[in-house]
């Protein structure tokens, strides 16, 4: 028997379908949206005119994998800062962790905010199995992972040896082997240099041993993603993250990437700094936003900082080393055999710190200065800027100038003096919020059935306890976005009144580009024989690791 769900009187914001606040009835059948609203034995719910959007789609949030798990180990104190007991109603297991929650709590916290899809942006290939095990154990969400490819020794070798035609097939094999959704590059050439205790500080600075530059890595991966027709273009974490004055290399990189085609440049806030030291640290968001806007092939996400305790974790080993020198808290460095690096450090962003205040303001500046909401998305690079649970606060800051002014009062004056934030009037509409949190992200990830509520789309729906006339009350908006009135995942109600009511498992999204395996097969066999600690058969993620696989087609 068909499962039919009807939601009546929903005030729908669906930018993909061009619907902007129209009260209508929604209907899903067997997990897909359908056009006509009818059906016997349907479950009927009344949204009472509340704001309704497609389920949220997060393009960049660290929720699974070796880094996240090691952060949980490094920070037992994080587990004591948010504890939730077993929920007998939802059948939900207990969970803990404020910034790196356990898998089940991650699913619940996202679902309560109306999110239904989350992409883990940094899977080390060697840790692919672990990553998929955690994703499979994260309920209530469809998930997927991007594979770290930018500092892979074999790729760097191909580029060095002039065999650039082999980059695409090697990347394709990597995506197949790790069941990934796309390609990620972190600190191009810099991470490889970190294995020699070095970093690269310019696009044309060669990495030791390979003599390959960040510019070469970026363009090659961009070309590979285009050649393989991947649903999501290469996902780029630029060089010199978090360093004063890094806006120079960022603007140069945007120019390079923009001229060469498509790319998603992630957590741009961390790459948008002026000044030459921590003393004259400032935001150059205006220039960076202008440069990004110039190149139609580029999109970005914020990496917004919010004040409080969080965990920074990234594949960018050298960046974490620098941060560890500054804040002097516990530090983990990880080196994943010839593929990538990693580092983890707890961090407390303080509103009384001039540097942190500029970081906070810079993210908001980017969101407000990039005119086209289809090209800038809401993320916090969770948990690097802050835990994802703070999205509602950020959405409120984007939607309300009043909220920003109130916030600025409590923040170090450099948020006002070293940025353009106080002069920005723009306020996001509900439609624009829907774009930066679901429609835009889904489109950019190539998830054709997500981000909207038109016929044929996945029945992932979020109804927020907000009436469309919220406008003058930022507090109400924030509360409404924090606890969804209803979250529907695959046609099933999973959250009611801000509370998880059932544990539905999500799917794992992955892609399978077509490529010529013969081109790299022998080379790969030799590579595994001569250089790896494990065999190729033990390296690849087997189908068993994806209990609910869902292929995303290449373009």
């Amino acid at each position, binding site marked *: 028997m068909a499962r039919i769900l009807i939601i009546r009187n929903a005030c729908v914001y669906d930018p993909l379908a061009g619907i902007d606040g129209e009260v209508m009835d929604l209907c899903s059948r067997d997990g897909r949206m359908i056009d006509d609203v009818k059906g016997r034995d349907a479950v009927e719910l009344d949204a009472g005119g509340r704001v309704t959007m497609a389920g949220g789609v997060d393009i960049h949030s660290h929720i699974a994998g070796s880094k996240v798990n090691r952060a949980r180990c490094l920070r*037992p*104190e*994080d587990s*004591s800062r948010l504890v939730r007991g077993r929920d007998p109603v939802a059948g939900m297991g207990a969970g803990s962790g404020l910034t790196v929650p356990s898998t089940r709590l991650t699913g619940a916290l996202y679902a309560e905010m109306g999110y239904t899809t989350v992409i883990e942006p940094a899977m080390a290939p060697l840790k692919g199995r672990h990553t998929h095990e955690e994703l499979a154990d994260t309920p209530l969400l469809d998930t997927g992972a991007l594979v770290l490819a930018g500092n892979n020794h074999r790729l760097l070798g191909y580029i060095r040896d002039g065999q650039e035609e082999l980059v695409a097939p090697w990347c394709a094999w990597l995506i197949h082997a790790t069941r990934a959704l796309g390609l990620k590059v972190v600190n191009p050439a810099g991470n490889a240099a970190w294995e020699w205790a070095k970093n690269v500080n310019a696009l044309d600075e060669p990495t030791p041993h390979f003599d390959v530059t960040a510019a070469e890595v970026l363009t090659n991966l961009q070309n590979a993603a285009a050649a393989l027709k991947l649903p999501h273009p290469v996902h780029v974490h630029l060089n010199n993250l978090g360093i004063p004055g890094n806006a120079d290399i960022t603007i140069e990189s945007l120019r390079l990437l923009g001229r060469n085609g498509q790319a998603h440049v992630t957590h741009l806030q961390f790459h948008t700094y002026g000044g030459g030291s921590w003393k004259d640290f400032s935001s150059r968001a205006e220039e960076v936003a202008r440069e990004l806007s110039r190149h139609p092939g580029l999109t970005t996400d914020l990496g917004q900082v919010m004040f409080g305790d969080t965990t920074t974790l990234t594949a960018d080993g050298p960046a974490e080393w620098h941060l560890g020198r500054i804040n002097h808290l*516990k530090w983990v460095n990880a080196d994943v055999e010839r593929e990538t690096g990693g580092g983890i450090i707890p961090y407390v962003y303080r509103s009384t710190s001039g540097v942190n205040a500029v970081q906070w303001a810079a993210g908001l500046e980017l969101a407000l200065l990039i005119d086209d909401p289809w090209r800038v998305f809401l993320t916090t690079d969770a948990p690097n800027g802050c835990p994802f649970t703070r999205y509602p606060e950020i959405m409120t800051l984007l939607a309300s100038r009043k909220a920003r002014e109130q916030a600025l009062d409590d923040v170090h004056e450099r948020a006002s003096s070293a940025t353009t934030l106080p002069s920005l009037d723009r306020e996001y509409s509900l439609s624009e919020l829907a774009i930066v949190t679901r429609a835009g992200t889904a489109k950019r990830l190539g998830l054709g059935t997500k981000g909207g509520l038109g016929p044929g789309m996945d029945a992932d729906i979020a109804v927020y306890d907000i009436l469309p006339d919220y406008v003058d009350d930022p507090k109400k908006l924030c509360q409404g976005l924090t606890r969804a009135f209803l979250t529907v995942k695959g046609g099933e109600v999973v959250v009611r009144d801000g509370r998880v009511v059932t544990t539905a498992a999500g799917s794992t999204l992955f892609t399978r580009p077509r490529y010529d395996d013969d081109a790299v097969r022998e080379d790969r066999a030799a590579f595994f024989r001569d250089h790896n600690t494990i065999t190729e058969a033990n390296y690849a993620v087997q189908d068993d690791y994806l209990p609910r696989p869902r292929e995303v087609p290449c373009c």
Partner: protein
Amino acid sequence: MLTVRKVVLRPIDQPAVGLEAESICPDIFAGKASDRISELPIWRGNRKVALGDHFEVEGRAGSIAGRTRIVIEGDVARTKRLGQGMTGGELVVRGTAGMHTGSSMSGGRLEVEGDCGDWAGMAMKGGELVIQGSAGHHLGAAPPGDWTGMTGGRIEVAGDCGVEAGAWMAGGTLIVRGTTGFFLGVHMQKGEIVARACPRRVGGEMRGGLIVILGPVHVLPSFVPDGAVDDVDIAGERLSGPFARYSGDVTEKGKGTLFVREG
């Protein structure tokens, strides 16, 4: 004059598995009579049970924590989290108390007449914790993994204590009349510690604060001799010396002070 009401708890049928009883706290008892106190939840292993299952309750609490005195008549060595987070009032254990006694308390007075388990006064913010017997490990320390220990209040132990007492301490006073374990005041940032003796590694990686050891002690090589004094005023007492003064820990560019009584 404040009217203080008294609640007496008599341990009955103490199980082999630990009880977690953060509800035994003046703040939670406040405004309740014995029947409602008996119904308060505590954890026996992974099961939620009623306080009355393991304690006989007599008397009634005052209207607020500050007017409530709780007396536990007997050994409760396996009952954890007694007085956790208390902000006022009094809790007396006429016997041995379990782990996490008085952890994160911010006011009031907690007295244990016997020994006390590990993590007593963990991340304590204020108030007074008195242990007539000996304390376990991590007395007044930071929670596992955290980098802020005790920030205020006063802990006084008549006997000895275990390792890492005052770890990450950032304020308040910690007095151990007997001998401490290794790493007394490790990572200490602020506050003051007095102990009769510490076997080794006192003040390792300390960045600030004051430690006084009332006898010869092995001083880490990362502490720099910094003269001598006759007396030290600390925690409202004048301790007579002579004391050798050290500053450190230089591996952390620390500005902590260590006094060691000579002779």
